[in-house]
């Protein structure tokens, strides 16, 4: 009974649903304010995205004639569920995740994929040609960041790998990564992994679909692309997914490169964590948003497969040779 309650708590409150939504709303609000300030505007209130979400929830859901109803309605929800599930694997507090296995990173990689796929399938089911173009671009963006992401993942695993009692390597385990950092200091302090950390910083905005890399939702070119036909509650869920994804990616960076630090007081740890997330949001999302114009699709691909992948590859090779 207790275990069930604990699990429900993990799932619904911390680090699950409630905390995710809270952080997502805060970070996205912060992002909007920061961008506005950089552009010498006042910007919306911090909770503007939450108000938008509530407004969308109240609107009528219009299902287009060409749409396949079930897929159209359920795809966003499944994607959101997958995203919340990722948060349960992240040991954001004291290296303890609600769930941990011996290959969390692969699971997270695929769950992130699942989130995008749900978006794409939903868009596809809406029957709009703009959504078709949008999902095509989203897929290209995904192929683009997947290579550096995978390389980062491998270099981190290679650095922190431990052996289990039977002598088999424990790889891709976030708990192991956290433990390693607790013993040897955060990975960002290891110079061989600094390129990987940089690459990961580049991966975050593309994974979230933030401005210079938001090829899939380019309003001016393809009318919001994947969301062209969405309205009402499914749209609200998509917006929420977008916000929570910002938080999840920041948290993933925190766990991979800044983990292992603990003051012993949970409250202080949480505050530090929130501050780090805010900083990451500023660095990876607000700053490029304010500075850069949107990339073209093929430029996104080129950028990630050359520069970002090269950064990650440098780390992988360095780590491989024991540096």
């Amino acid at each position, binding site marked *: 009974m207790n275990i069930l309650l604990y699990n429900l708590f993990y799932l619904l409150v911390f680090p699950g649903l409630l905390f995710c939504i809270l952080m997502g709303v805060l970070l996205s609000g912060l992002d909007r304010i920061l961008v506005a300030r950089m552009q010498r505007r006042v910007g919306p209130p911090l909770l503007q995205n939450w108000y938008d979400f509530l407004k969308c929830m109240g609107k009528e859901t219009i299902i287009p004639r060409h749409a396949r109803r079930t897929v159209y309605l359920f795809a966003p929800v499944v994607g959101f569920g997958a995203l919340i599930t990722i948060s349960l694997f992240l040991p954001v507090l004291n290296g303890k995740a609600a769930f941990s296995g011996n290959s969390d990173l692969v699971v997270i990689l*695929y769950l992130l*994929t699942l989130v995008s796929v749900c978006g794409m399938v939903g868009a596809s089911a809406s*029957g709009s040609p703009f959504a078709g173009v949008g999902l095509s671009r989203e897929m290209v963006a995904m192929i683009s960041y997947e290579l550096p992401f995978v390389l980062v993942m491998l270099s981190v695993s290679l650095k922190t790998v431990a052996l289990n009692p039977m002598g088999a390597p424990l790889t891709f385990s976030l708990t192991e990564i956290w433990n390693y950092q607790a013993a040897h200091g955060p990975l960002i302090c290891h110079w061989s992994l600094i390129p990987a950390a940089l690459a990961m910083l580049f991966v975050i905005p593309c994974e979230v679909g933030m401005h210079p890399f938001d090829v899939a939702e380019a309003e001016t070119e393809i009318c919001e692309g994947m969301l062209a036909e969405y309205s009402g509650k499914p749209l609200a869920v998509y917006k929420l997914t977008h916000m929570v994804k910002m938080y999840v990616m920041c948290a993933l960076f925190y766990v991979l490169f800044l983990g292992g630090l603990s003051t012993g007081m949970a409250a202080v740890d949480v505050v530090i964590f929130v501050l780090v997330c805010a900083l990451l949001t500023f660095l990876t999302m607000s700053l490029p948003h304010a500075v850069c114009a949107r990339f073209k699709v093929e430029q996104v*691909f080129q950028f990630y497969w050359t520069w970002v992948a090269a950064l990650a590859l440098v780390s992988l090779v360095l780590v491989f040779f024991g540096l």
Partner: protein
Amino acid sequence: MNTFMQNFPILAIMSLFLGAFITSLVARHSQKAGNFISALSVTLALGFILALFKPVMLDGQIITYWLGGWEPVAGWAIGICLEVDALSLFFGLIVTVAVFVSCLYSFTYMNHDDALPNYYTLFLMLSGSVLGLVLSGDLFNVFVMIEIMTFTAVALTAFRTSYEGALEGAFKYLAVGSLGSTGVLVGIALLYSQLHTLNLAQIAALMPVTQGSSVVLAIAFGFLFIGFGTKAFLFPFHPLAADAHAVAPASISLMISGVLTKCGVYGIIRLTYILFQNANRPVVSYLVTGFGAVSMFVCVTMAFNQHNFKRLLAFHSISQVGYVITVVGLSSALGLGAGLYHAMNHTIFKGLLFLTAGAVQHQTGSLDLDRLGGLSKRMPKTTALFLIGAASISGLPPFNGFASKWMIYQATFNAGLLHHNLFYLAVCVCALLTSVLTLASFIKVTQSVFFGQLPKEYEQVEEVPLAMRLPMWILAVLCVVTGLFPSLVQTYLLTPAVSAIANIPAYVDAAMGAGYAADRSVPGGVIASLPVTNTWTPTAWLALLFSVTCAVAIVAILGSPKDRQHEYISQMGEEESAKYDSFFSGEQAVYSQVGGSDLFWGFKHNWRKYFAVMHNWHSGIVNDYTLYGVAAIAFVLLVCVTTL
């Protein structure tokens, strides 16, 4: 040993061959009777194989059957033997299940065709030969079965002779595939010249400890490897599979991708781990893994260019077999486990995908990705089945593709780590990347066949009948079950099979009599048994995913309005219904369909040179394909002679 059980392997094979014979006699008079006989023989074969599950998989027995009772005399195997260890049975299970499903599907799918007696005769012969191959304990029998298999597969590929390209695909398959058959035959001859036996167990026992002692054996290894590689459609031979798959009936595509390629995989495993267990291990690993990785990557990129549904699936089929071969080459228990698991999953999900493609073809008469669209409106159940298959092959959790790919990443990464080898790490990256590209392809199919807009000509298309959906559902359920319970699969299927590979003396002794292996000091095996710790346990977080999804679904869906669009249209007239239109920004709907080949422009544009080169290489000319094949043979032989 239970002597009654001993007859089951031969009974399973003979029920298929006898079924083929009787069908050809009966079906000319009554097709119903022919169908009944084929269904009966397929079910019998499945039953016999399932009956072997307990003794072989659970009790670890190895069942041998000497044809005509010719048991070994004075340490020499003079008769032909069937030897069923857990590895053979593992593949036997895959084969019989796939055959069963394919046969069930054929009854409705093929009902518009003529010459059906021939179809079922050939189909049963194909099934029998494949089963004979994996259960055989005799190398020459393997060759004969491969030949029957190639033959019947070619005939079945060309079965719909009027279908565009059917004959062409069949001829290429036969001509270039004959390189593989020649490879196997020459390999057998060379092996025989050195060891004077054809019995697999005896070859394993007599194989000299230092491989370098005989160049002839190295050449034999090269020929056999390329021969089995051809049957698995490895890299330079992959155009054959693409051509054959695209034009064959869907039930046969299932057989080619789900069953025939597995024979190649089985052959490579037997060859590298049991027959040539003393070969220079790193070289063998590089060879097998290298070929696997290249096929994996090249074929997945080739799939991007395809406009034909089944041809696209065909390339993915080879790509997935590439995964299997890649990890099988790693010489680790985890790798073998992952490979076997993925081989099984590949049969299941790729079978499902081919059957859905067949359903689309059956109902619409087209497989053109640029012309189809919006079929989910008309065929919702097929769409659901396709999505399950697509999610499985793309490795999305919680389907089976994820469970096996998870093991594949672990295996390649561990190999890179333990051997401190950059090559294996590169393979790991390649495997992860291939998975994304696979996903992209299937998004393309989803968009261009099942979603998007419904062309006018397909507005009257109907859902396929239940008799065709049933086999698909069987496979779909298997997709989910094998994905949700990887630990069960590991305990009851993978561990026995990998242990069988690891325990060569038991294999030798079962055929040649106890003590035979010990007398000749046969080594214990290349790999250790599969460690039990490396299982992925999805149930915990699967429950979570489920509950999260449910919770959000309640919030989001219950509040949403009912499907009122049709009521609106009838009540309010046309003006009101305009809000349910899709937004086309002024274009007419007919001109704004996003076809399959329009997708992923950003990716294809950046890789246009690569794609252009690849397009030129896959020229469709038999001579070119033969050239690639001969070049591969030469390369493999060179590697074998210089390093083994």
